[in-house]
């Protein structure tokens, strides 16, 4: 293969010198990492697939803005995190509509249960939109994607202690938001 053995950074340089095929090769190289994030953040397979596509489209579209001041994977995670918050925003609206439809049109227990589960998941994730973005990024990487504090620190390009601090503040903020969304929060688990 033409680009075999090249790093993400080298492929990015080739692209920025005008080689569009190098951009494709770089996106393909990032694909397994992006797929892992999509899978970790969306329980629904279709949503995960949709998210993965959104991730690599955003990375391709924003590749011109990469300044080579960090690793490509770090930059890509930041792009993915922003995209993820957009997707949650979009999905929470869609989920709200689904709930309305399911309550009006279907009284079946299965349908109600499905709606309740998906709504609870979206409620939890939508809470991320209501806290500061830097805290939401740290929470998503550690709690949803399963990265360690150190790995998350490398991805975000910040010290590990800062990641811990952001998660701590994020946890308090999320608790506040979730209690507002549902007073039962804290007394029982959602799912």
């Amino acid at each position, binding site marked *: 293969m033409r680009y075999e053995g090249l790093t993400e950074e080298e492929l990015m340089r080739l692209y920025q010198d005008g080689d*569009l*095929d190098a*951009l*494709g090769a770089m*996106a*393909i190289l990032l*694909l*397994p990492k992006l*797929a892992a994030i*999509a*899978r*970790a953040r*969306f*329980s*629904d*397979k279709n*949503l*995960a*697939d949709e998210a*993965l*596509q959104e991730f*690599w*489209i955003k990375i*391709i579209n924003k590749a011109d803005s990469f300044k080579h001041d960090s690793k490509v994977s770090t930059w890509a995670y930041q792009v993915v995190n922003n995209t993820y918050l957009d997707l949650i925003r979009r999905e929470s609206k869609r989920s709200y509509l689904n709930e309305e439809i399911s309550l009006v049109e279907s009284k079946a227990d299965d349908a109600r249960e499905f709606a309740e589960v998906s709504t609870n*998941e979206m409620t*939890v*994730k939508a809470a991320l939109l209501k806290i500061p973005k830097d805290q939401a990024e740290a*929470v998503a990487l550690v*709690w*949803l994607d399963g990265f360690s504090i150190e790995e998350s620190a490398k991805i975000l390009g910040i010290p590990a202690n800062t990641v811990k601090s952001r998660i*701590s*503040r994020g*946890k*308090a903020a*999320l*608790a506040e938001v*979730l209690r507002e969304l549902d007073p039962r*929060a*804290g007394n029982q*688990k*959602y*799912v």
Partner: protein
Amino acid sequence: MTKKDDFVEDLFRDLPKSNQMSEIELKRHEKLILQRIEEMKLERVKKHSSIYGRFQKQFQLAAAFLVAVAGIGFVINQSSTTGKSELEIAISKPSPADENENKSPSNNSGEIEKPTKSVGGSDQFEVTDPAKNKYLFSTGLDYETQLSEIKSIIKLSPTPVEISKIAAAYGKCAIELGINEQLQAIDKGSYQGEEVLAFFYEGSSANSNIWIVSKSCKKIAKI
């Protein structure tokens, strides 16, 4: 942060995850990526061609503009040049040399004649530029009766006239007369009712030697 907030972490960690993506699914995304890259290549080609097209259009407009400007400039230049030459003609004055030459009664335009060879072998006079033949004259005066007047008109060259700078017939005649290295002026006049050529040589304006010859350089008299 309090202990009672720990439920948040549990909520997030316990959220369901989708199954790991299969190789087939990843391959499908690879194909989609490659398709997108091909689309971007086409977009780039279209963009380049549209930029080229726009540049070409702009170039044509610029070229047309330059041609128009050059045309206007030419017209303006022509009109200003004509005005200037008219002005120069109006203010120009003849130089003393010109005045001298204009005194010679050749013709109204100030031009004098020089001989040229005819078919019959005899010399003919042709019109020449006086500025180029400063020591060639055409007084038309009679060398028998008007010599003093002729001498006041004829201006002698302080150095021998170069044969190469006068008409070939004159030069040939000067050589035949043996005065080619002393020639000071040539004049066309008359002698005993006949059109003649007068070759001035080796002398001063007051006392000059003159050979009077026919048009065909036949010696008539030495004055």
